[in-house]
């Protein structure tokens, strides 16, 4: 890795940023998410925090522009130069510019904004180009999935700011699960505002009806407050909440933001203290009940009263004939329950109480 001459860095760890304008190539929310995720990549491994400003002067001013765009350092039209950023300092220092003549995307179809932003924001924090071809700070664009920092990038940024005192050591570029591994199992599945989110290890896939390929992202990149593994998750669309479970804690999200008052203990739902983890959870829209699966049993939680239904837990095997006695993840669509256990997916009719179809778990990932 390399730093800029004189090892330029921010003098305090609380850095502000502002997005001055947006590319028309992406939705505003997608740009916000790409920038936030890119900043979180660096925040994960340093004591740095990033606060978004909506007006005034921020340390890092982010903008999209084409050709000569105000800094006498013009872009060159499509391809070639994609973006540039200035090392930490007053005025233009830290400012990050993206070439509007590029096609910016969320996936690999053109230039992925998250990848480029993560690289540029590395400059804005004091990282110069690395000659290590595997590093994020290598100056040539390459699309990768998963956590983008290599050991070289982490060593470089920590030489400037030190390590993150609040988190465990981040593993550089963890090996992302392969979606078409025939033995793939899921940790959890939920809906999130019309998208399906599939959790596996420290990653999740987003499936959108209009996206041909699932998009894989590190959980920590989107939800830095969340533990690296999710046991269960479900959406209550009426409340516009997604609940995620890990061990004895649960988190509620409104979109991508954590709801105040969370995390809470799962026992607040009415589960006994002997339950230490929820394996799977699903909200049944037609009944207003949420089913919580723990080992070989399941519980029914009434969303309207906020209480656990009487007569539970009940046996999974007895109430869902044809199913395995344990489940990893469950989803509900149009009267059908989709149970995932190890590498098998069971399509189960909730009305006729029978398994309709058995497929591989990863069939929902287009495998």
């Amino acid at each position: 890795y390399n730093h800029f001459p004189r090892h330029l860095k921010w003098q305090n760890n609380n850095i502000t940023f502002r997005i001055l304008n947006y590319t028309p190539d992406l939705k505003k929310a997608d740009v916000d998410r790409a920038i936030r995720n890119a900043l979180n990549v660096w925040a994960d491994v340093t004591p740095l925090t990033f606060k978004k400003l909506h007006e005034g002067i921020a340390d890092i001013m982010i903008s999209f522009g084409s050709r000569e765009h105000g800094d006498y350092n013009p872009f060159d039209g499509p391809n070639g130069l994609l973006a540039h950023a200035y090392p930490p300092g007053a005025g233009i220092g830290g400012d990050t510019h993206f070439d509007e003549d590029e096609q910016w995307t969320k996936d690999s179809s053109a230039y992925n904004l998250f990848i480029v932003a993560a690289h540029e924001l590395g400059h804005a924090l004091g990282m110069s180009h690395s000659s290590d071809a595997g590093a994020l700070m290598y100056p040539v664009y390459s699309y990768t999935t998963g956590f983008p920092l290599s050991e070289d990038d982490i060593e470089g940024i920590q030489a400037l700011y030190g390590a993150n005192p609040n988190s465990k050591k981040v593993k550089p570029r963890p090996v992302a699960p392969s979606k078409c591994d025939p033995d793939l199992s899921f940790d959890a599945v939920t809906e999130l505002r019309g998208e399906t989110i599939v959790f596996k290890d420290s990653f999740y896939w987003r499936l959108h009806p209009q996206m041909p390929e699932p998009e894989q992202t590190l959980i920590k990149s989107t939800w830095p407050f969340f533990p690296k593994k999710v046991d269960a998750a479900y959406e209550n669309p009426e409340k516009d909440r997604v609940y995620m479970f890990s061990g004895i804690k649960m988190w509620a999200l409104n979109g991508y933001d954590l709801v105040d008052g969370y995390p809470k203990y799962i026992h607040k739902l009415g589960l006994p203290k002997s339950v230490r983890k929820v394996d799977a959870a699903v909200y049944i829209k037609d009944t207003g009940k949420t089913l919580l699966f723990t080992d070989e049993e399941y519980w029914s939680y009434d969303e309207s009263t906020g209480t656990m239904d009487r007569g539970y837990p009940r046996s999974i095997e007895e109430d869902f004939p044809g199913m395995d006695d344990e489940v990893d993840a469950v989803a509900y669509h149009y009267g059908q329950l989709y149970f995932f256990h190890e590498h098998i997916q069971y399509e189960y009719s909730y009305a006729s109480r029978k398994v309709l179809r058995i497929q591989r778990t990863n069939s929902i990932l287009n495998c």
Partner: protein
Amino acid sequence: LPLQSTEKDNRLFAEKYLHRLYGLPAGLQGRLQKSDTFQTKLKEMQKFFKLKVTGTLDDSTVELMKQARCGVPDIGE
């Protein structure tokens, strides 16, 4: 012999690249001086990218120069 047009294009492209990213000075200079500086900057670039350091504009160097990249100079300020 005059330069082939692809060669000429590549040379101009490389000059622009080195000017933008390796501080190759622009403007009027003597032919010899310019050529020397071009070669020096080209070697710097080849060394950084772990290419074979030849000082000449070979195919692998041109190919790398044509890849999409970040616009922050690789050396110095």
